[in-house]
């Protein structure tokens, strides 16, 4: 049994050990208290490595190509950000860059920075702070919303020209699934507890 307060309603309750794969819900408001995920850092680490490769790929390869007759205009993920800045909207360009490149990139790096040493039963300096910032970054990481935007844009321009998805579109799609799977495989409580242990 351990004592825990609900994050959403502050209700203090004793939680019996939660079997692996199950979750504990708050007795008062029904919110998720904790989920006991399989205890392994192998899976999330492998997924994060794949995520890092895909991140590089969706930045390096062509994204969408506009084709109409003999006219071909190739774009990269960063093209729109640069064009927004050129059009006198540096704030908007910075926000999109943050949501699309900086937050996901930092997210990936921070996860690796914390998990690689923890899986070896070591602690990286300042990792508590990094893990804390990781949580703050999470809502600003909007790659999946951008992907829906790709779909909308392709429909919007369908009558005007042919829009050809490039390698970056597929890498971006894979990146979304890999990162979702990695987050689902990481048990934050396990990280906090392991980290306390070797002290």
């Amino acid at each position, binding site marked *: 049994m351990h004592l825990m307060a609900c994050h959403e*309603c502050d209700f*203090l309750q004793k939680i019996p050990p939660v079997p692996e794969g199950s979750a504990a819900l708050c007795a008062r408001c029904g919110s998720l208290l*904790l989920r006991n995920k399989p205890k392994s850092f192998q899976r999330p680490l492998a997924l994060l490595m794949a995520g890092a490769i895909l991140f590089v790929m969706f930045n390096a390869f062509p994204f969408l190509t506009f084709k109409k007759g003999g006219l071909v205009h190739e774009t990269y993920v960063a093209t*729109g950000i640069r064009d927004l800045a050129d059009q006198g909207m540096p704030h908007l360009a910075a926000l999109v860059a943050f949501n699309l490149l900086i937050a996901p990139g930092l997210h990936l790096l921070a996860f690796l920075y914390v998990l690689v040493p923890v899986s070896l039963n070591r602690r990286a300096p300042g990792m508590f702070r990094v893990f804390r910032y990781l949580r703050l970054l999470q809502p600003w990481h909007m790659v999946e919303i951008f992907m829906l935007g790709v779909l909308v*844009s392709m429909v*919007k321009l369908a009558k005007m020209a042919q829009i050809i998805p490039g390698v970056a579109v597929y890498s971006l799609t894979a990146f979304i699934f890999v990162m979702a799977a990695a987050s689902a495989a990481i048990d934050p409580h396990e990280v*906090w507890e392991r980290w306390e242990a070797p002290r």
Partner: protein
Amino acid sequence: MKPTAPTARAAGLVACSVCHLLCPGKPAARPDGAHRCPRCGARLHSRKPDSIARTWALVIAACIFYIPANVLPMTTVTSLGAVQSDTIMSGVIYFVQSGSWPIALVIFIASVFVPLLKLAILGYLLISVQRQSRKRQKDRTRLYLVTEAVGRWSMLDVFVVTILVALVNLGALATIQAGPAALHFAAVVVITMFAAMSFDPRLIWDAWQAKETSDE
């Protein structure tokens, strides 16, 4: 009379908002919140500081930005000298007229419906907390969690503009420029996200405590 519900606060404890460690609440916690979690170093707050005032301020700011976001042009298309501006709504109408119903619906929900609903829900939650309502606390908590999770999807239209601007950049033939509404709209989304983060759902349940202690 029911005994007061055992909350961390009533027990003199503070739960860390990051790592969930239960820490002793300082008897005289300083208002600057210099009290930190011994495990992860996050600042400890029994309740988010000035939650109601901050959330109200952000909700009102978002309402103000919402007007230019909808009135001003989101994109301006220049094609062979002809110039055409589109607002969020005219973009939705374009998709309806061209028969792309699902896309029209997606944009309408993400850009018009979700921001308005989010502001309305936050307003309702704030008022119900200020009136110390004890009704449907569980539903209100769920409403808050859904609102917090869904709000970010409103960025959709900003991303569509970014992609269009990049793709239709063909010099004299055709260009798409981002309009001033894009910036205002992005501001609405960012501000409402901060508004949802600054609201403390534990306040919904504090009314219970307040009523019971004042009944005695």
